[in-house]
Structure formats: structure tokens, C-alpha cells
């Protein structure tokens, strides 16, 4: 693990600023707080715009691209507070978390100028274009193909599990730009930025077992992508995706998805009477420990260190924890009378969403492999 990163007084002040911002929101937005798993499903453009006005989107984007030139640790503090409050941050989440860093590192100047200021303004939303119907954990097996044509590429294939794809403006698709080489499966992959309103793009809903629509299937049928929307180098897609995943895996969303359920349950006397202090204390300690661990990774990203293994460590423990929390509270709330309907509805959402926690962003089984490789066992 990276070394401990302390929270400076300035970061503590920023934390208080976010808490105050949330408490003083206009009533129409304040009622949108308090959800479970809101970074995936809480899509609220008004909230996103309000955050952008405070300068809390695109925080780490340089000023010349419309961002705020702040540190990873500052962004960490802000996102932690938003997630802990169950704020609806899904609209800008992917764009802010991983598209902006990816474009800054690998994008062409034209693409940066086109997208980064819009992302920072809270006006441009992204999905993820990695998985496919036949490529879940085995990402290197993607079959979406891009052919060279005059001035760019034509892309055909199907992407799956694109959260918010029906509402987003674009995604970065991982595609094959060279045929599969069985001796080096990671070669021949590239990343292309695709606008979801381009001709030939068809976004189809995938409804979750809880009846919600956040996932989509995105069918690409001879979609033209101009040259300047190739992200990074042709053939470097695997390396780029792997570095993107460090940002995707280590953040506070990997342990705070059910934080509001914890809050609500502890404030609900009918649940609290079924809860033993030793159990709530254990969960509190784990929460505080994960908060330290996740911040250590943010500090490490700030210093520009490799964080893939430490990010995997956080995600394995964090996603298990947030699911265990939902399970424990659901069992404590049970059928007890007097349990507030709000606790029950959050608990329902928690236990139904739970299977996704340890799947998305790389299953915990894949991540254990990443950890084992870091230990030199593979």
C-alpha cells in the first residue's frame, strides 16, 4: 500500500464547504440527496450544473481546458462527501472520473478542446464502452472492429453495460484495430471516442432485475469516427485502458454506495434496537479504515505513482463492505414493525443492487488476480 496521506487543514476546510453546500441546497435539489448507489443511477442534470458552478467538476483538469487545476486529494474529498450524502452525481461521473484523465493523458489537442471544457461545465456526459456481450471479465477478447477509411475509421460491433448510455453524449470504445494475435492478445486494441448521436449508433435499454434502466447495449453499425478521435496511439488500447482502471477502481464510490443506508438505519430506532453495538462498531471501523486506505491511493495518484495493485486492494475490500452493509441492515430491519419506510426502501435498493457492487469495474475475482500478480505469484 502507498504511505499514509494526511488530511491537511485546507482539505478539512474543503470538506466542510461541501457539507455546507449540501445543507444549503435549494429544496428541489436537497430532496434528491440520500440515495443508495447514486453514482450509477442518480442522474440529475440540475445537481450536476450546481456542482459545476462551484467548480467541483473537472477539478483536476488544467485551467486552459476549462478545469480548476486542483489536486487529486481535493477531488477525493469532494467526491467522498458527495457520495456519503447519497448525492445524484451519475450524469457527470464517468466523464469526470475517467474520461477527463484519459483525454488529458492520451487525447489529441482537438479532442481535449472539444470535450474537456464541456465536461468541466457539467454539460457533457459519458458512458463506458469496454464490455461486450461475449467479453465480460476477458476484456482483451473484444470483437468490435474499426477499419481504416479516408480521414478516420468505421466501427462495427456491440458494447454492453453502458451505464447512462441513453442519456450520455459519448463514450470511449475499446476496439480491435488489428486482427487478434493469439500469442499477444493485448496487442491490436485501440480506443476511439464515439459520439452516441452519430449516425449508425443504436442505444438499447437493458433493464435491471429491480426494474431500473441504467444499463444499455450500444450497437455500432459502420459508425464513422474521424482521425482526431483516436485516443492515444493505435494499438496502445490495452495499456491505456489499464491505466484508466486505476482511476476507476480506487475511488470512494467503491465503499460508499450504501452509506446513506447505514446513516438511515442508525437514525431509525426500530432498526437500531436489532443492532448490537459490537456489529455497528465493527462496520464503523471498517468504514473509517477504508476511508484511510482510499485516501492513500488518491495521494499516490497525486504523486503520479502506479496504483493498479493498491486500487485493486481497495476495490476488493470496499465493494464487499458496501454489500455486507446492505445485507446486515436488511437483516436488522427485517419485518420489524415501525421501521421507517425510507429505511426499507433503501435496504431494498441496497440488497437488489448488491450483486453489481463486486462485478462492475472488474470482478473481485479478476482483482484478486491483479493482487496476486502484484505479489509476484503469477
Amino acid at each position: 500500500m502507498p504511505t499514509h496521506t494526511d488530511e491537511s487543514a485546507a482539505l478539512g476546510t474543503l470538506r466542510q464547504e461541501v457539507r455546507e453546500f449540501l445543507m444549503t441546497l435549494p429544496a428541489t435539489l436537497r430532496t434528491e440527496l440520500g440515495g443508495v448507489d447514486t453514482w450509477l443511477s442518480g442522474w440529475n442534470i440540475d445537481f450536476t450544473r450546481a456542482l459545476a458552478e462551484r467548480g467541483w467538476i473537472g477539478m483536476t483538469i488544467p485551467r486552459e481546458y476549462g478545469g480548476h487545476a486542483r489536486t487529486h486529494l481535493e477531488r477525493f474529498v469532494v467526491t467522498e462527501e458527495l457520495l456519503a450524502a447519497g448525492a445524484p452525481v451519475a450524469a457527470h461521473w464517468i466523464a469526470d472520473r475517467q474520461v477527463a484523465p484519459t483525454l488529458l493523458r492520451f487525447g489529441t489537442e482537438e479532442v481535449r478542446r472539444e470535450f474537456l471544457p464541456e465536461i468541466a461545465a457539467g454539460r457533457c456526459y459519458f458512458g463506458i464502452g469496454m464490455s461486450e456481450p461475449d467479453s465480460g471479465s476477458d476484456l482483451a477478447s473484444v470483437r468490435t472492429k474499426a477499419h481504416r477509411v479516408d480521414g478516420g475509421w468505421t466501427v462495427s460491433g456491440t458494447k454492453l453495460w453502458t451505464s447512462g448510455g441513453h442519456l450520455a453524449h459519448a463514450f470511449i470504445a475499446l476496439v480491435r484495430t488489428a486482427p487478434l494475435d493469439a500469442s499477444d492478445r493485448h496487442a491490436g486494441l485501440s480506443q476511439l471516442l464515439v459520439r452516441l448521436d452519430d449516425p449508425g449508433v443504436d442505444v438499447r435499454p437493458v433493464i435491471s432485475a429491480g426494474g431500473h434502466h441504467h444499463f444499455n447495449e450500444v450497437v455500432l453499425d459502420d459508425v464513422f469516427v474521424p482521425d482526431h478521435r483516436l485516443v492515444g496511439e493505435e494499438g496502445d488500447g490495452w495499456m491505456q485502458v489499464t491505466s484508466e482502471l486505476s482511476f476507476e477502481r480506487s475511488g470512494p464510490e467503491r465503499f460508499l454506495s450504501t452509506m446513506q443506508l447505514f446513516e438511515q438505519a442508525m437514525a431509525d430506532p426500530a432498526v437500531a434496537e436489532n443492532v448490537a453495538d459490537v456489529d455497528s462498531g465493527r462496520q464503523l471501523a471498517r468504514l473509517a479504515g477504508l476511508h484511510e486506505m482510499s485516501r492513500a491511493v488518491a495521494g499516490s495518484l497525486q504523486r503520479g505513482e502506479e496504483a493498479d495493485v493498491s486500487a485493486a486492494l481497495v476495490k476488493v475490500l470496499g465493494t464487499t463492505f458496501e454489500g455486507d452493509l446492505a445485507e446486515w441492515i436488511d437483516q436488522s430491519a427485517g419485518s420489524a414493525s415501525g421501521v421507517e419506510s425510507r429505511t426499507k426502501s433503501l435496504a431494498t435498493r441496497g440488497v437488489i443492487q448488491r450483486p453489481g457492487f463486486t462485478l462492475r469495474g472488474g470482478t473481485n475475482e479478476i482483482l484478486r488476480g491483479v493482487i496476486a500478480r502484484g505479489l509476484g505469484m503469477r
Partner: protein
Amino acid sequence: MNTIDPDLLQVMRDVVRSRGLIDRLDQGVDGIRLEGAQWHQLQELGLATLTLPEEHGGSGASWLESAALLREAAAAAAHLPLVETDLLAAWLLREADLPVDDRPRTVAVLDESGHSPLVPWAGEVERIVVLAHADGRRVVADLDPSDVDIEPVASRSGLPRSSVRVTGTVDGTPVDDGTETQILLRGALGRAVQSVGAMERIVELCVEHTTVRVQFGRPLCKFQSVQNLVSDIAAETALARSAVDAAVTDAAITDLAGPSSAFRVAVARSCVGHASSTVIRNAHQVHGAIGTTVEHPLQLLTLPLLDWRNEFGGVRFWDRLLGSTLRATSGSVWELATGATSAEFDKVLMEASR
């Protein structure tokens, strides 16, 4: 910065690893004695009383350096009374304005009848500092072991543990009422740091063993089921380390008297305690039968963990205090977790120590 001088770290490592794990296998049978030669080296290097201020003959270092030494010693299974001498006894003598030096010591927190059921290293050290009751006050005295009754009690690892009894009134120097709680916190954090040192070495032993040991024609580390067991050990150890680092960093600044100090110690103890379950179970699982014997060094690390997690408050003791705080707090769970309202925890701890 939160890191210590790498040269100092190397010096620490050289001393405690002057005997390897294999050289220590007899500990598993004969028990653990204070290692006079190593202690003498530590004294010469000023490492025996690292955190004691320089004007009192110590090295004036902080909890950061102390934690590094404790981790190194625990990882080498060099079980020395460092927590007891430096973090507890020397600190307590300074609190009482009594003279102190770098001889090995321990602390016995006595009840009103003059008894303490479990004192580490009591039969091995040169002085025993007692925190006793006298005329309704807490007093401190630096005693010769011959002035107290020492009855060895069994420990799981063979680490020396004794029941200590003092008859008659202790003629001591009065100290603050909160001293006992401070001893609890200091000891608890010391044990948490030692535990992390042992767990980090266990991760190394697991990687080593599974790389070397071949079954079914392949090294064990090539089996995914084995990789999963070791990955979970590494993850729990990393979480424990993060929680302990947070408490140590706080202690380095506040000497455990800060607004969030006690809360951070409790979090560290809970994370370390629960981590130890996974670490011990999985480590023995990947080592197979050999790891359960005195012929293998694994037990030199796992058995002390089983002792340490029950000392200075057990796992459930710290869990319960944290849970009671949640019940009592007027703030949110999140505010508590991020340390904003830990005055609530201090109140719960005070009540529990009463």
C-alpha cells in the same frame, strides 16, 4: 512527511534480524526470553527508549520511528519489551516526574487490591512500574521485581506473561486520573503496530512458500484458489496497515492526546483484530500441515497475533465502544468515521475505563 529515514530503518532491521526466523524456532517449544544481547545493542544505538525526550536520556523520536521499530521487531519475531519499556514505562515515569533510564521495564496496572492479572514480560525485566491505588488516588512507583509477587501465566505464543501482586500500600507519586486510559491507548496502539508487522511478514512467508512448494506438478502459487487466499491476506493486511498508520500519524503529532486520537486507536484495533482472523486462517491454509508445527516459522508470527489482539482491550471491546459511540452521537455516521465528532468516543471510553 510520514516516512522515516531509510538509514535508520536499516539499522533497526539489522539489529532485530541478527537472528533469523529459523534461528528462533526453539521459541515455539522453550518460550520466549528477553534477548539480552539484542537489548544491549538497542540501548547502545539509543533505540531502547526511542520516544523518551533527549533531556531524560532517550532519543526524542516520535511514534513514527517507534512504529517502524515495532514493525521490524515483530516481523523478525524478535519479541522484545519495546512497547512496555519505551511507550509505557518510560512515559509513565515521566508523567510522574520520576527518574528513568533505558533498562528493560514493564508496567503493571493494579486494581484496588494490588493485583494485575496479565502483565507482559514481568518475570524478564529489570524494573516494574506500577500504576496503583493509594488513598483514593492513582500513584506511580518504579519497583524492583523482588518487591512484587510474580506468578507466570500461560500465553498462546510463549510470550512471557504474569500475574503481578503487590501487598501493602504503594508509596508512589500521584498522577492524573486519566493516566490509566492513556496507558490503555498507548498499549493498544503498540500492539496494533506489532500485529501489522507480523501480518506483513506473514504475507511474505505465504508468497515464498507457495512459490517454492510444488504439488500436482506446479508451484502452489499458480493455483487460482491459492492466489485468492493470499490476495485476501494481503488486502486485510493493507486495510489494517492503513488504519494503524492513521492512528500512528496522529500519535506522532498529539502523543495520543488529540481530539481524534482515541477514536483512531479504536478503529485501528478493530481493523487489526478482524484482519487477524483472515490472515491467520488463510496463512495456515496455504502452508498446509507443516505450518502448524514447531518446525516451521509461521507459528512464530501467528501465535503472538493471537495473544496481542486480546491485550489492552479485545477486538469486541473496541468494537463495542465504537458501536456505543454511534448510538450516542448526535452527528452522522460519516462525520464520526471522518473524525469530526470523536469527542463522543472519548466520553464512551472514559465511562468504560471507570
